């Protein structure tokens, strides 16, 4: 449903992605690869500049035997075996309490890339340019048309009055006596027209209002912790599934539990480098204070980080649910994102650009159905691509081969049927 997306948001997204790409492009290609690897493999425990579950990685080549990347590779591939003969890593284990997880699939090239990224990230950064976002121009055209119509309407009214006055003057000058003109507010034609307009407009508004009952588009509640998706999923490019992993397996996308948050926030205790954060009212948000709220819920003391473990989490955080479907609707996330290859953004909007999340889509039945009409399924048009589940649709295979169908949409496989979502 790309077409639904407001232009402003798309511009924001475009700008953001250009911005990010430009940062990345300033360095060599291997730094980008290294960053991706670092984010996926190391970031859960390591930070470049700060101690986390494991040591800060800045300047790692100056420690241990890590100047030799082959040694580093051996350590990463099989920490247990390496540690047996290496006093330095044994010391690390004593200091941090646990041994590093092994990554047997990491290659020497990967290590080179990651070290390049770490060295790059450790350098003091030049101040980053401010992120400029454009205000979305909702309904701007409608407003312009409305104003024009209003002006034209007023001109028409004035002209009609002028016309009748001129006529009266000419009648007076010609000596024709006519009854006093009825004022426009008693003019039956005007009254009739006004009431027709009133009923049509009123009826439209009532119907629209009734249809909209219970719908919550643009719903943007205040959450117990100011959590910015822009900072997490946008700037830091954390995969949606890292936190909402159950969307891959389950009907629920599920909000991550506190221990998932703490995987990173055990190390990240302050909000420093990101852009300034503002709430809807424009008040500045203290990011570090928001992280502290998480730590409070987790029973975590940043000064005593090593003592903490997930069993110490005191209570779950009561987030406010934004996307609500009625009880009689069955919606399954894994069906859409895993079997249907739908991007999260298709329904949730440019989540990577939102600080506080709001409901972008209508989540109405018409909205669902429209997408089901247009979206093509991952059909196995030939043996090399598509989902083999669809191999049983013999008729469609034949029709596709004979050219009767050019694609198979969700509608064709029964995606508009009531019981696909209501049972």
């Amino acid at each position, binding site marked *: 449903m790309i077409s639904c997306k407001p232009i402003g948001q798309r511009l924001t997204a475009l700008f953001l992605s250009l911005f990010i790409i430009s940062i990345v492009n300033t360095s060599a290609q291997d730094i980008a690869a290294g960053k991706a690897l670092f984010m996926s493999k190391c970031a859960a425990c390591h930070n470049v500049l700060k101690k986390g579950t494991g040591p800060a990685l800045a300047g790692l080549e100056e420690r241990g035997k890590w100047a030799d990347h082959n040694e580093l590779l051996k350590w990463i591939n099989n920490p247990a075996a390496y540690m047996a003969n290496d006093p330095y890593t044994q010391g690390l284990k004593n200091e941090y309490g646990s041994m590093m997880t092994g990554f047997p699939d990491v290659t020497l090239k990967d290590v080179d890339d990651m070290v390049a990224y770490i060295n790059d990230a450790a350098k003091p950064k030049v101040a980053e340019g401010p992120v400029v976002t454009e205000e979305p121009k909702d309904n701007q055209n409608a407003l312009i048309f409305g104003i024009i119509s209003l002006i034209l309407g007023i001109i028409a009214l004035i002209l009609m009055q002028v016309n009748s006055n001129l006529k009266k003057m000419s009648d007076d000058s010609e000596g024709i006596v006519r009854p006093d003109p009825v004022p426009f507010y008693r003019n039956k034609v005007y009254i009739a027209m006004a009431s027709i307009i009133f009923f049509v407009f009123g009826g439209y508004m009532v119907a629209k209002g009734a249809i909209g009952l219970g719908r919550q588009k643009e719903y943007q509640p205040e959450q117990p912790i100011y959590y910015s998706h822009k900072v997490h999923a946008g700037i830091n490019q954390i995969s949606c599934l890292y936190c909402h992993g159950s969307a891959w397996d389950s009907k*629920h996308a599920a909000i991550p539990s506190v221990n998932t948050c703490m995987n990173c926030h055990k190390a990240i205790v302050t909000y420093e480098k990101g852009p300034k954060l503002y709430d809807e009212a424009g008040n500045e948000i203290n990011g570090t204070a928001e992280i502290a709220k998480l730590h409070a819920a987790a029973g975590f003391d940043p000064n005593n980080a090593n003592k903490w473990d997930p069993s110490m989490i005191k209570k*779950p955080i009561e987030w406010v*649910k934004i996307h609500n479907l009625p009880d009689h609707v069955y919606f399954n996330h894994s069906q859409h994102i895993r079997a249907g290859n739908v991007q999260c953004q298709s329904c949730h909007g440019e989540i990577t650009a939102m600080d506080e999340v709001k409901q972008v889509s209508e989540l109405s039945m018409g909205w669902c159905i429209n997408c089901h009409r247009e979206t093509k399924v991952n059909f196995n048009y030939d043996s090399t691509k598509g989902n083999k*589940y669809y191999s049983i649709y013999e008729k469609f295979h034949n029709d596709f081969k004979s050219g009767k169908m050019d694609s198979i949409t969700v509608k064709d496989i029964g995606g508009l049927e009531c019981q696909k979502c209501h049972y």
Partner: protein
Amino acid sequence: MSQKKYWQSFGEVNDNENFQKKQQDEFKEELPFEGFDDKGLIDAKAPRRDFLKYLGFSTAAATLAASCKIPVKKAIPYANKPENLVPGVAKYYATTYVQDGDVVPVVAKVRDGRPIKIEGNDLCSYTNGGTTARTQASVLDLYDTHRLRFPQHRVGKGADAKFEEVPTFEQFDKMVGEAIKNAGGTTVLLTSTIVSPSTKEIIANYPGIRHVQYDAVSYSGMLLANEASGFGRKIPSYDFGAAKVIVSLGADFLGTWLNSVENAKGYTVGRKMDEKNPSMSKHYQFEGYLSLTGASADERFTHRPSETGSVALDLLNAINGTGEITTKSIAAGIKKVAEDLKANPGAGLVVCGSNDKNVQVIVNAINNAIGAYGKTIDWNKPVNYRQGIDADFAQLVADMEAGSVGTILISGANPAYNYHDAAKFVAALSKVKVTVSFNERMDETTELCEYVAPSHHYLESWGDAEPKTGVLSFMQPTIYPLFKTRPFQTSLLKWSGNNTDYEVYFKNYWTGKLGSEGAFNKILQDGIKEEAPAAAGAGTYNGGAVTTAISAIESAKKVTGAEVVLYQKTSIGTGTGATNPWLQELPDAISKATWDNYALISMSMAKEVLGLNLIDGSEKESNNYEYYPQKPVIKLTVGKKEVELPVLVIPGMQANTIAVAVGYGRGEKLGKTAAGVGKNVYPFSSFDGTTISYHAAVTVADAGRKEKIAQTQIHNSYEDRVEVVRETTLATLTKYPNTIPDYRHHLEETYGKSQDGKTTSYAKEGTLYPQHEQPGIKWGMNIDMNACYGCGACVVACHAENNVPVVGKSEVLRYHDMHWLRIDRYFVSDDKNPDELKGVVFQPMMCQHCDNAPCENVCPVAATNHSAEGVNQMTYNRCIGTRYCANNCPFKVRRFNWADYTGADSFGDNQDQQLVGKLDPVVFQMNDDLTRMVLNPDVTVRSRGVIEKCSFCFQRLQAAKLEAKKQDRPLKDGDAKTACQTACSANAIVFGNVHDKDSAITKVRAENTQRGFYVLEQLHVLPNVSYLAKVRNTAEIIEPEGHHGPAKTEHAAGQKEEKKAEEAHH
């Protein structure tokens, strides 16, 4: 000339015309408008002004309700999410259903921490994944609001006595420990049958404890007889699958005798037919009343319950060729059975439900004579289902009375309710100084105990069961205990000075026995461990006890008057199912009655005692009896004990026999579901010094009043259409194999010709409507009526899977039952004499998912329509409740939510209003927050005013398809199974994709063309549920009337129906 007739009620068989008139309305009730009379709207008591007032008020109310703010919903994640748990994805844990010796290995479906559905464990070879109705319903027991929630002790005496909570188990242990120490005397542990090896060890290690096992319905006659016959005090495994001739002397082995799942699984081997080589096992049933098992028998012989011994003796004599047959009324039958058994040496099996040691000794002699031992009876694998000995318990009661028992600990047993002389037990119990109960509920015995330490439900427990030698089944908790309860084994351990918890003890016990933790975990994961199959053991038979047994039977007094026999229902059992709303609402297989017990009487007794002539009586008599729920009440007197019960007249009963189900008439403290439902008839049983007898001579008198019984069968009518059930005999099928295919051929020829006459297609040409296309999957179901014995496991499974509401007795009485799946029971008899029962047919009936569904084109809002997978869909949120669809459904499978049974409505007081009436307490119990935890979150909870019906478990189909898509593969046969299908222990239901040429459903339809039929095929509704005709294994030949298959009457009816259907289309 065929005189066979299928009928559901006496009205239908005796006075069909009037019966049909009464049955015309789909919804029999008047609409609930008061005071409209016939005067029209304006003159009605609620005139125009009132109408406007209500209109104005409701508009204003709706506006107010609609303008309310949308409530803020919270999304609260785990604080610390367990690693392998995904919210919204169900997990399955193997565990074991254990209830007083009944053992069924199961798999519990746990969704977001809540067990919501029980499935059979497929890894278990002797149950093959089958379940019983009670197993299916056991998950609801977990959320029973009347479970005991904490340890308690009784304070005060007499009327002021009440139970007070003991804050911790430590305090409780201290209290009880001191009490036991001070009590002196012996300590007795009274339990129902214990099948757990680790528990037995705990008991053995309890210093000085005396363990007495007590079964509510005893098998001690069998245990003692087997001991006398040299096999030891055991019960063998019965292999019904290996038997070609099965003879049951009053044993309800498909319903409640020993393990019905195991029996039904074996029995089905001989009942499923291969039509290329038609053969079946032969099942003879001797009994006094019409039991569930008797209903499936090929030939039934009725005799008095007191004659079981002489029938067994006659049979033994007939086999041995000695003596004379004394039971003259069925002499021919006994001779025939004896011949048949002799003709099949080593392939016969005789089972007997009597609890008389002497009778069982004779049965053992018969089995020995026909060579059953080592073939159909396996002594290498004795079963542990029942171990109680009646005399042991009688001795215990005597000891208690004498005051030599200081402490009694009770677990599972409930003699204050189900002992034949409960008053004696209660008096004896009051002489015991320390009384402790571990029962889960405040049952009749627990009420009288001083200390109560409730145990966990089995879904909260660790544990083990050894149902038979060589089979081990584990229990593991599927949910954290809901209440402050504790396994009774832990209490025993603590009080015997061993300070370990049972879960630790259990693990250590098995890790030690199995050798490693890995082996322990393996069984825990599989749920079951079985030894490799081995040849059946013959044991060593010793006929020494036969002579005494013969003389005891011959000297038994003959009863001349009426007799009463006690039986168990598959739902309530011995009474343990009484607290379960699903089970109370499950219609009994034979009587189709819910929420009650009653006296089943024969037609001749009805005439004799009540003057109710259903055999050849006046035209209205049978209709009046059948149509109104008020049934005459009779007074039964056995000795000094009297019970008044309403009657149900059942064909095929022995003339002087009355049958009453046990398990009803429970105590007030068990909750509204059980209390006040039916009467307790355990007092009719008696103890003869050795065993308890469950039949007695009885005096019958008309009580002169009527009581209502809530039956379900008569709620629906097929309007005299006769092609609903198809049933035949093996001889007929062999002689005329093409009766059913010919009928279909006839339909093709008559209605299926295309306009140019070149092609025929019944599906395409017989309709004005375009055909529905199914480009991918087309779901279909087949039900083998030969393998349906009416047990009701599927009905309860459907309840659990699809959130089908419970409506209570008052609503069933108003024909408002909500079952999506019902099992219709048809009696087969001669046209002239309904009492000459030839057989009974059970037909599971649910939405037939017609390709040409009559319900679809009458819905004004298109709330029901057809899917591309051949499923007839029902969209609740679209339904406005016109009920046109239900009226137009020829199968009467649509159900209307007359009231807010589920509490799903937005307005709270919908369950209690003048117009609809206040719903039964059980509905409110089912809507308790605790009970609602059993709901399946994938299925909508329907609110008032909408129609609902079978969806083919659509949520399961969707889940299976999604799983296949995720794995990038086509759907495999068996990926999608319906709840009724998995519940069935006889695999009567096959479900799958009809378009898949290799699927089981395609195969079963292709391989059973002679028996395969669709219900009401001539209506051209094209159902997607097919049936296989029921076949009785008899030599009777039913001559077809026309050359082309069906009898002429059916043919004519077919044409008439076709016209009707077409008119409806126009």
